[in-house]
């Protein structure tokens, strides 16, 4: 199962609808300090089911919703979608007919968040399982956050075992 696009609206500093195409090979992301590059990584972790506000660098989960700027008012809704190509037909049974899967997570200020796959409401557990079956997830070692590359070295031996389990 390939990832083909990441779509965001109202998530952190991405107020306007934004689409990042995830193509094969190496995609570079550049830009000045503070412009929103690391926010894209967090959008990816969040749509895959991340439940810790601290890992989103916030105090509470509502901090992922656009909080306003000096020229724009705050929003109350944020949505991130991850589009996956299902040509290999490895999706869960109820979605396996579809050519493409679009996993969407939406959060409303003060209301918590919900998940949908191809516009059908699903549980957080269904989403977690979908990504786990495809060798990834919000805590996968393959998502290396800023400043964390040395963490594998600094971790305790039992924490590193998780890495081996990803290989199994």
């Amino acid at each position, binding site marked *: 199962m390939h990832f083909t696009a990441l779509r965001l609206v109202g998530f952190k500093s991405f107020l*306007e609808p934004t689409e990042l195409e995830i193509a094969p090979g190496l995609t570079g992301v*550049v830009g000045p300090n503070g412009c929103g590059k690391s926010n894209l990584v967090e959008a990816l972790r969040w749509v895959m089911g991340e439940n810790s506000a601290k890992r989103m660098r916030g105090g509470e989960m509502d901090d992922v919703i656009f909080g306003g700027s000096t020229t724009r008012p705050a929003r109350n809704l944020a949505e991130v979608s991850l589009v996956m190509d299902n040509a290999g037909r490895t999706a869960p049974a109820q979605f396996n007919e579809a050519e493409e899967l679009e996993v969407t997570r939406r959060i409303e200020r003060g209301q918590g968040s919900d998940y949908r796959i191809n516009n059908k409401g699903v549980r957080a557990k269904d989403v977690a399982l979908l990504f786990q079956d495809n060798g990834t997830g919000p805590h996968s070692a393959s998502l290396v956050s800023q400043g964390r590359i040395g963490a594998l070295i600094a971790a305790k031996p039992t924490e590193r075992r998780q890495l081996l389990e990803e290989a199994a």
Partner: protein
Amino acid sequence: ARERLMDAYGQVQAHFKRLFTELFGGGMAEIKLTEAEDPLEAGLEIIASPPGKKLQNLSLLSGGEQALTSLALLFAVFLVNPSPICVLDEVDAPLDEANIDRFCNLLDLMAREGKTRFMVITHQRLTMSRMDRLYGVTMAEKGVSQLVSVDLSGAEALREAA
């Protein structure tokens, strides 16, 4: 589950040894399962020694050496069980020019050999020039992020314009 873990361990070990000597241009490294009744409870030790240096406590390695050792282990796991996506957020920040070059060579190899799609966030000109495509994130309107597709000279302009 136990066989699978031991099997994965063997494969990761082989790749890790090879990738480490490729990244460092020599030296040697290995992983070891710590003592435990059940391999599912064991921990993973990393032993690494850059070329010309004696085996030592991992925490004595320099910032750049730790980053490269981590990358060698991470990519060794990918070669055994590729993840659909890999995101690297400024992992080249602690590296000198020669090691940025080796890191990019390894990325090239991983992208060609496997199915993993890479998203590499960087401020380093050298790394930008090795990407298949570039996206620029700007805040033309302060506080509001915008994504634009750029070429290498566009990325340069973005760096200057900040």
